[in-house]
């Protein structure tokens, strides 16, 4: 076990390093740099002198070649300094420490939501294949997969405001926006978050239901299930102990990459819902070539992904004795 963990750790370091280089290069690929896109966003009519532009470039260190820029950034990063965001004129660390906790506060419960809902439904659908409820779940699942999250978000905003007079979007309802922390404010936040969780988690839930159902259907016809039945176990007990146990491990092991997928896959939804997570931040940073910010977010996400995958692999090894390290 220990040599495996060590080997994987080295692999993980290399992966993160490579991702950081790629991220840095990709962000710079579009023509121009932050100063160009910054100038483009300035309202027309303003005259900017060449000198001012050069001064800006020098200030942001954009005159160095790419390798130097990367080297500066990564050495700073290793000392815990992620640089500054040109656009926000704040340190990246500052921005991330504001956004990341909220991102996690939404994505972790979403992951729980996804598994807590999809696994029981997947089990039921497989065991009662072709029952009316199985058809219902399948239909709902396909809709959940087919409707893009942001569209779902817009629909939710409409429905909630139209019929419940509530407010969707943002983290707080208007009356709590500026209020000091109180129980009411926490409840309000949870309510707003639960809508986000529902929207962000739906497609993952639908997909996981399909996977769980399919996996379990394969297992239900296995001979060892019949052995268990012939032993005298009751139907549900044997299903939970044997085929579910076998089918669930590959499903559960995806938990590692669900997290980063949820974090990075929700930019548009979070933008529509006006949630201050890292998603919209990354979107903006990439659009305006705010390179230290974008590269740092991608760096953090890649670390999460790599760690998530590692956890997945460990879970799988733990769950399936047939897998040798």
């Amino acid at each position, binding site marked *: 076990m220990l040599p495996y963990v060590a080997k994987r750790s080295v692999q993980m370091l290399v992966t993160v390093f490579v991702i950081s280089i790629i991220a840095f290069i990709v962000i710079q690929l579009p023509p121009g740099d932050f100063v160009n896109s910054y100038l483009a966003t300035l309202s027309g009519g303003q005259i900017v002198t060449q000198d001012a532009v050069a001064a800006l470039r020098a200030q942001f260190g954009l005159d160095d070649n790419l390798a130097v820029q990367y080297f500066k950034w990564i050495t700073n990063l290793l000392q815990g300094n992620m640089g500054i965001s040109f656009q926000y004129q704040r340190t990246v660390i500052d921005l991330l420490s504001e956004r990341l906790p909220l991102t996690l506060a939404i994505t972790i419960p979403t992951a729980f939501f996804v598994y807590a809902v999809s696994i029981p439904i997947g089990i039921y659908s497989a065991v009662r294949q072709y029952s009316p409820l199985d058809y219902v779940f399948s239909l709902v699942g396909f809709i959940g997969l087919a409707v893009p999250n942001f569209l779902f978000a817009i629909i939710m905003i409409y429905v909630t405001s139209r019929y419940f007079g509530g407010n969707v979007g943002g983290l707080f309802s208007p009356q709590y926006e500026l209020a000091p922390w109180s129980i009411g404010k926490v409840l309000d936040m949870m309510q707003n978050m639960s809508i986000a969780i529902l929207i962000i988690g739906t497609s993952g839930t639908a997909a996981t239901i399909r996977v769980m159902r399919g996996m379990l259907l394969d297992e239900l*016809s*296995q*001979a*060892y299930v*019949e*052995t*268990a*039945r*012939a*032993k*005298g*176990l*009751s*139907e549900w007990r044997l299903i939970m*102990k*044997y085929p579910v*146990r*076998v089918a669930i*491990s590959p499903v559960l092991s995806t938990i590692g990459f669900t997290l980063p997928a949820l974090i990075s896959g929700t930019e548009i939804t979070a933008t529509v819902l006006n949630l201050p997570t890292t998603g919209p931040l990354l979107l903006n940073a990439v659009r305006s070539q705010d390179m230290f910010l974008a590269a740092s977010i991608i760096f953090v996400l890649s670390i999460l992904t790599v760690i998530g995958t590692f956890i997945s692999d460990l879970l799988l090894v733990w*769950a*399936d*004795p*047939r897998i040798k390290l």
Partner: protein
Amino acid sequence: MSDSNTILKIDDLHTHYDTPQGTVRAVAGTSLEVHRGETVGIVGESGCGKSVMLRSILRIVPHPGRIIGGSIEFTRRDGETVDMVKLDPNSRKIRSIRGDEIAMIFQEPMSSLSPVHTIGDQIIEAIVLHKSVSNTEARSIAIEMLGKVAMPRPEQIVDQYPHEISGGMRQRAMIAMALSCEPRLLIADEPTTALDVTTQAQILDLMRRLQSEFNMAIMFVTHDLGVVAQMTEHVVVMYMGQVVEAGSVKELFTAPRHPYTHGLLHSIPRLGQRKLGRRLVSIKGSVPDPFARPSGCPFHTRCQYNDGDRCVREEPALREVMPGHSARCHYAETLGLQGVDKPAEAINA
């Protein structure tokens, strides 16, 4: 003729599969009896309904199969006789019979054990389910059973996973599990088909030994008449979901009364030709489409004694042609079919 020694009596059992293409009469009026401590061999071509019949006994016929008629009377340890057909397949009562009084072992030792549970876990579960013992006691019973099936190093095997041991050892583990509650009836559906010849011989030897030790009855499905001759006292020959002939091994081999049995006996390959897992194929033609059951005697399409009249019109009944020997043929008494010696090549034991 059922007597106090009968522990299982199947009467006119019908198990059908409703499929979109039509109804398959997998078991179409099977009747047979099993007595205490007796070994009954069940033979017949692939698809004749052996497995479905055995699963019907335990009421574990998979969907969409269902029993639509007949009775399966089983005499319990306490003397009570229950009709398995009348029980709800999920009822507590039938579950207390499964695995405890009637145990079953299957053909595929590779897939019949859960890959993610230890051998011990799976055996202990059966013991704890049916006996009021603690987990620790159950564990020592499991180890003891593994020893009885001649498993090497039972104390270690008990904590190992199926993929860590060989196919023969897995089948031993299956047998240990099946016997752990000392069943009155062991149902073995081709328990050695998937094993190599040497391992097969060892397993058969083991089963025979354990049978006398536990004094249980065994229903033994096989395609190998050599195994039948070696293992069983009584044979049941099935064709298209029905018993076409039943009797003692000696009777049936030396004086078969049904042309199908006759065909099977004369299709035994000679010594040296025997290929592992070889199925019985040398009867003319092949098994009719299960959706298009022939009229009259279901075997008439392949029978060289088909009279073209009665055989095609009228379905023969299973009747006793000699005490303890019955056949389902209009001409059972008069055909004078040639038997064989008890197959000499048996298996390479």
